[in-house]
């Protein structure tokens, strides 16, 4: 008997509620106080095709689905064809021989539970649409779960659709539950028992976490064009636009989206866009504009496999080097890669602070695996989270700076030809141009200039994508160009000082050090435990900040490791390349995957062991 450690899968045709059934089953785990991880795999089409949703439930925290299934709920024959051989010995599958029009032979050690899902749905659920609910009821019957919790979830979920829909689903679930109880009793070896203590966990995707972080940070403007797997950011923000006072614009294309975000940032709003690689490609010219105008903004790139349209609904980490270098010329940007659901929340919040403090674009690199998987996540602790707006001036501060600058300006006007603006840095302490406007791009020690926004009296300036002087007006002199390039670059020095350097996770004295970023980090934490059980000591270096890069710290850590293995969901080992470029250190081995499907823990363990055995 195995209790509270289960991998369950529902599979069927797209358009038949596979994902909503997955959600209901995952919520059963949440309400039982268990940890949940759910991964949805689906093709890029609206109806038809094979959809599956894997939900893993455990008393321990889980970061990744397992490749082996304990219980499979097959809504069609194709599901069995594809997944029957993935069931563990002692596991089982639910199928509908009547609807499939054939009996199914169970593999050795696996039990088939024939349940007339369709018939029950029509009779008890008053329609075939409840077939997935019957399947959940049957699953929970085998697992001996508390049906009052399921009824509560169904009531909550279908409340908007009316009492009749709620009643039909409850009846369908009960009929499925009763059928397996009557016909199969307690034959199944896996059970789910709700824990007694109540635990406040959310069932969220990483995209949800990013949106919550953005709202907490005071994001007031979102412009986005739909693109899998980032669209749920647009949907989330649009759904909450009214409650939180956010302008959410579905634009004509990603070019408009990024350009709008720059306009909103210029006007003083905290602004964000979300997209995937293809959309990000269209945004890069305006990304450079944000760099040149020194406008704060946040851009989320939820990666999917490329190039071009690639595998639209699958996962990859192929945009790291692109994000670091996107757009012509050189300008500072901050690139952050969260490695967990929690980090997506906290780092999205930080991204808005960093964008304003350093007046630059911040890119968050996520991926489909995190963005569309669900995970049980503790409620975020928002205590002590502080909105920091950097050198954004208030009207009073502008007035003060202007008063202080007057003497300096007088002197300047005598010295500088008034018709050409500046050809270099103005006097220290002066914040006014010859036009009596504000020196928005004043050269300061840290490269960050005090910032005004339209509507502020005495704050007038011109933001220009051409190279410009301290006032924002155009000039092509060498002296000014050098000063401005250096000013902008300097901002990253300050940012690097502020960002926490990476540290080793796990045993300091390990045989193997994994080097990873983004969503594989979660799986690697499980791999380390699995390897420990086999007598291999492993630890993990997670890189979160790609730009600016902690060159010194990363180099020192890696040079102190015995054997390093880069683990990335791409074909080139882009983080390994970045590390080599920055530190001169070459990671010993790489475990790479580019099939569009996420690493599982056991797969990583096997590939790690193969590397160890090959070399030693």
């Amino acid at each position, binding site marked *: 008997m195995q209790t509270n450690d289960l991998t369950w899968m529902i599979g069927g045709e797209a358009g038949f509620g596979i994902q909503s059934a997955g959600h209901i089953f995952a919520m059963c785990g*949440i309400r039982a106080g268990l940890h949940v991880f759910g991964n949805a795999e689906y093709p890029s089409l609206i109806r038809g095709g094979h959809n599956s949703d894997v939900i893993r439930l455990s008393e321990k925290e889980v970061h990744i689905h397992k490749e082996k299934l304990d219980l499979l709920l097959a809504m069609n024959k194709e599901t069995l064809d594809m997944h029957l051989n993935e069931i563990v010995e002692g596991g089982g599958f639910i199928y509908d021989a009547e609807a499939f029009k054939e009996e199914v032979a169970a593999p050795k050690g696996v039990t088939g539970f024939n349940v007339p899902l369709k018939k029950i749905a029509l009779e008890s659920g008053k329609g075939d649409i409840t077939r997935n609910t019957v399947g959940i009821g049957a699953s929970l019957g085998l697992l001996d779960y508390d049906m009052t919790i399921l009824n509560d979830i169904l009531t909550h979920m279908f409340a908007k659709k009316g009492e009749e829909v709620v009643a039909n689903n409850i009846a369908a679930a009960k009929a499925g539950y009763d059928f397996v109880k009557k016909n199969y009793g307690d034959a199944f070896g896996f059970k789910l028992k709700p824990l007694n203590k109540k635990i*406040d*966990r*959310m*069932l969220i995707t990483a995209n949800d976490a990013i949106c*919550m972080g953005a*709202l*907490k*940070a*005071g994001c*007031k*403007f979102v*412009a986005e064009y739909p693109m899998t797997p980032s669209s749920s950011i647009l949907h989330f923000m649009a759904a909450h*636009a*009214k409650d*939180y*006072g956010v*302008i959410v614009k579905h*634009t*004509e*294309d990603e*070019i*408009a*989206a990024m*350009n*709008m*975000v*720059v*306009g*909103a940032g*210029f*006007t*003083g*709003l*905290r*602004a964000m866009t979300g997209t995937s690689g293809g959309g990000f490609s269209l945004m890069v*010219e*305006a990304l450079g*504009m944000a760099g040149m105008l020194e406008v704060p903004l946040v851009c989320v790139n939820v990666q999917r496999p490329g190039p071009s349209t690639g595998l639209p609904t699958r996962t990859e980490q192929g945009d790291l080097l692109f994000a670091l270098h996107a757009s012509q010329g050189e300008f500072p940007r901050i690139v952050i890669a969260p490695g967990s659901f929690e980090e997506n929340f906290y780092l999205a919040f930080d991204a808005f602070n960093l964008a304003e403090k350093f007046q630059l674009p911040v890119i968050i690199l996520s991926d489909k695996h995190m963005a569309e998987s669900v995970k049980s996540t503790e*409620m*975020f602790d928002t205590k002590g989270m502080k909105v920091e707006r950097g050198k954004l001036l208030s009207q009073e501060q502008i007035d003060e700076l202007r008063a202080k600058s007057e003497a300096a300006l007088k002197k300047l006007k005598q010295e500088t030809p*008034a*018709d050409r*603006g500046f050809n270099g840095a103005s006097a220290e302490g002066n914040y006014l141009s010859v*036009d009596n406007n504000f020196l928005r791009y004043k050269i300061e020690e840290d490269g960050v200039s005090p910032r005004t926004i*339209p*509507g*502020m*009296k005495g*704050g*007038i*300036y*011109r*933001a*220009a*994508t*051409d190279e410009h002087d301290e006032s*924002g*007006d*155009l000039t092509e002199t060498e002296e000014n160009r050098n000063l401005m390039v250096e000013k902008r670059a300097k901002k990253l020095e300050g940012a690097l000082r502020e960002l926490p350097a990476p540290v080793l996770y796990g045993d300091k004295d390990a045989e193997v050090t994994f080097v990873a970023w983004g969503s594989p980090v979660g799986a690697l934490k499980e791999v380390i435990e699995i390897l420990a059980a086999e007598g291999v000591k492993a630890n993990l270096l997670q890189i979160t900040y790609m730009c600016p890069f902690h060159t010194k710290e990363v180099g020192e850590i890696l040079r102190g490791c015995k054997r390093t293995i880069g683990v990335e969901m791409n074909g080139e080992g882009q983080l390994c390349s970045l590390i080599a470029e920055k530190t001169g250190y070459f990671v010993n081995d790489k475990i790479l995957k580019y099939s569009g499907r996420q690493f599982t823990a056991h797969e990583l363990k096997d590939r790690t062991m193969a590397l160890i055995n090959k070399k030693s």
Partner: protein
Amino acid sequence: MTLTVKDFDTCAKPDWCPGCGNFGIQAALKQALANLGIEPHKTVLVAGIGCGSKMAHWVDVYGLHTLHGRSLPPATAVKFANPELTVVVAGGDGDGYGIGMGHFIHTMRRNVDMTYLVQNNMVYGLTKGQTTPTSAKGFKTPSTPFGSIEEPLNPIALALAMGATYVARGFSGDVMHLTKLIEGAIKHKGFALIDIFQPCVTFNKINTYAYFMQNTYKLEDEKGYDAGDWEKAMAKARQTDKLPIGLFFKTERPTYEEQDPGRTGESLVDADISDIDVRPLMEKFM
């Protein structure tokens, strides 16, 4: 507030060619802003890239000099973020009707409250004289040495079709007339297009000052012309033997920004973001 053109002067002087039509447009814009008494810090002049777009540096208001063809999305966001600001956009025909066409169409159907001045000289100036979407068929340029094969675009007809709520055409050689059109456009609540005939004295030897003086007439001089009649406006837009200037069409329609569900008050710029409570949001996911 009483203002004069001087309040919008900058120390730096335009670097346009002597005789460039942009001087007239710049003068008309400053005069219109002064006549309307809008304080300089309450206006944002957004521009694309091109000779005319440099105007953002030579009118003393907040300026946002963006990318080629991309002036309208940032301008839209400025207005969405702070509707109390007056938003004026300036750019050439290549910028707005060529590379920026997609944004042009969508901004009109949204009816964002802004004034869009298109400096239409029917030629690319800053890249040295290539054909643009409004160049006449047969126009010979370095990119079309045997003459342009395409039919020219009709911006007035397009604006009418896309639901622009203030559609006008001006001529940079008639600053007084253009000033009135700009004043009307800024006062108008909604998207206002002013397509402006603007001679490029260096690269366009066909559409010259003399050409426009001979071939244009004012709609207001035509007895009984009604700018509220869309069908008549469309007929005028399609006239090619003589080219009408003036206000073709004007109507009232709610702006996008006043209908946006996310708008809670006058300006989101003033919203307090210091301690936003996301707990109710988190509870929805439990």
